[in-house]
């Protein structure tokens, strides 16, 4: 199981050829209490870096970008009713969407867990 991170604090966790996309623990802490999540429709094709979802907290509204190109195969509909899950368990139950990864080599450009932790340290 590989998890990769973007500079915009999204993670993608690969399970087979499907990537589970969410936001990092650092991102949820910076956002503060999440109050609203807008998810894409299933079947939507996303290019790497395209807007995939929207997360709104008491502080700000932010876009979630697709870490790699792919097609949306599943979304975490529960977040619409209980957006607080993103704060409670960002890496687990607080996932946003599942992407059918188009080109696995795009993952190589993203940060590993270790690199991401370094990155977070450098900006905080």
């Amino acid at each position, binding site marked *: 199981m590989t998890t990769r991170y973007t500079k915009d604090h999204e993670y993608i966790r690969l399970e087979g050829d499907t990537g589970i996309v969410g936001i990092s623990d650092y991102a949820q802490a910076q956002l503060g*209490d999440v*109050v609203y999540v807008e998810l894409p429709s299933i079947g939507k094709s996303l290019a790497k870096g395209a807007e995939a979802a929207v997360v*709104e907290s*008491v502080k*700000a509204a932010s876009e979630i970008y697709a870490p790699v190109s792919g097609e949306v195969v599943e979304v975490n509909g529960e977040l619409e009713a209980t957006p607080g899950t993103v704060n409670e368990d960002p890496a687990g139950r607080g996932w946003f969407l599942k992407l059918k990864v188009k080109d696995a080599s795009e993952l190589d450009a993203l940060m590993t867990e270790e690199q991401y932790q370094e990155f977070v340290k450098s900006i905080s």
Partner: protein
Amino acid sequence: MLNRQGRPTAAGEAGTNAHPTFTGNKALAQIEPLIFEIGHHETTGVDLDEPEAFTPRLGGLERKEAIGLPGLSEPEAMRHYVRLSQMNYGIDTGLFPLGSCTMKHNARLNERMARLPGFSDVHPLQPVSTVRGALEVMDELSRYLVTLTNTTTVALSPKAGAHGELCGMMAIKAAIEAKGEGKTRNVVLVPDSAHGTNPATAALIGFTVRPVPARDDGWVHVDDVKKLLGPDVAAIMLTNPNTCGLFENQVVEIAKAIHDAGAYFYCDGANFNAIVGKARPGDLGIDAMHINLHKTFSTPHGGGGPGSGPVVLSARLAPFAPVPFITAENGVLTLVEQAKDATEQPFGRMTAFHGQMGMYVRALTYMLSHGSDGMKQASEDAVLNANYIRASLADLFSQPFGDKPCMHEVLFDDAWLKDTGVTTLDFAKAMIDEGYHPMTMYFPLVVHGAMLIEPTESESKASLDLFIAALRDLAMSAKKGETERFSGAPYHAPRRRLDETRAARTPVLKWTKPAPFAEAAE
């Protein structure tokens, strides 16, 4: 500590020991229910005779139940609205340091002029021949706005800042289309520090926004702009002075680069109040700029009155100015209402009528009563006041771009609060306890925990000194670790701190009748 008469000697202690009141009122701070909750079915302020028996002709559509209009006696109605008005905080009750909002004094002279029957009683559909005086005011105001900005023409009708942005950008779009570049030029450059309305305006009319990244010094650099320029760029939207309270020191070079690339320069004029009489935006190379009469020229806003956002246009954009506009025919002013009657190419119309007439009168009164020297001094005093606050707090607060002079507003970040356990939000809430409206918080977004303070020229030195002393006292408290003063603030306001998370997650969007009312309506 109690004094000999048993009265607490410090203000803070009075509140701490207070017994919660039976009514929920806090002495003069009275709580006030909605008017629908205090009205009674059987009460009325006027005696109306019972209608005589008659046969309704509504074909069975008569109302079957009481509709629940509140019934109040005249004293009850009077108390209701007076109490509500007392819950307000406005520029007439205290210093209003909200950055980027320019809450300056609204002179009573402006109000008096706006209430002259010749201005207050005119109707937009009146024949033009009966409103020559009003047209004269609009024409004179236009002339002053064009002179102060050194531009070619002005579109008066936009109703506020963002509406003015839209007007200016639509003029730019019309100019691009007239050149046959409508399909290719579809990108607008917007700095990261811009007002959120800038990218929203560009996106609304179909442009793609390309952000100009923020720099550590708070300025937009011409080199960064040049890197983003290309044949696809339609315009830049730049705020000057910018939202960090700094004058864009490369603005002339930026304007030149933009023009060399065949694009247009939209200037967000929200902060024009800092440079009136000191610099003319036309000299800086702008093509379009909205002017917030409700900020720069002291017409009421923030609940006190409507905004008004005229847009000045350079010679390159003037032909595309929207209708209506004023022209002189044989020395007599008249309005051009239809694009087909214009000799130029108006892009269309922004408003049903002519804009905020009352605001035009107020703004022109402000201009005439101040004169060119007075307006210049107002800009200077606004900048001086902001810098007085900056210098007086510089040892306690942190400035994101170093210790350098600001324009009309001073920007602090929250680096100085690090490890105190107090956030910008907590600090702002504690200011409410001290009787001040908080400053602008968390904007601009490019600065962490931003606190943006704009005192305006309206405040005296004594008023600024008290404000500074209050902020210093709070800052020292935070640094000493007195977190309680902040975490629970406001303590003394009619309402305590709101649960923002709950309000956003489970908003109550519909008023429901409280039980006693429902019974009374039976």
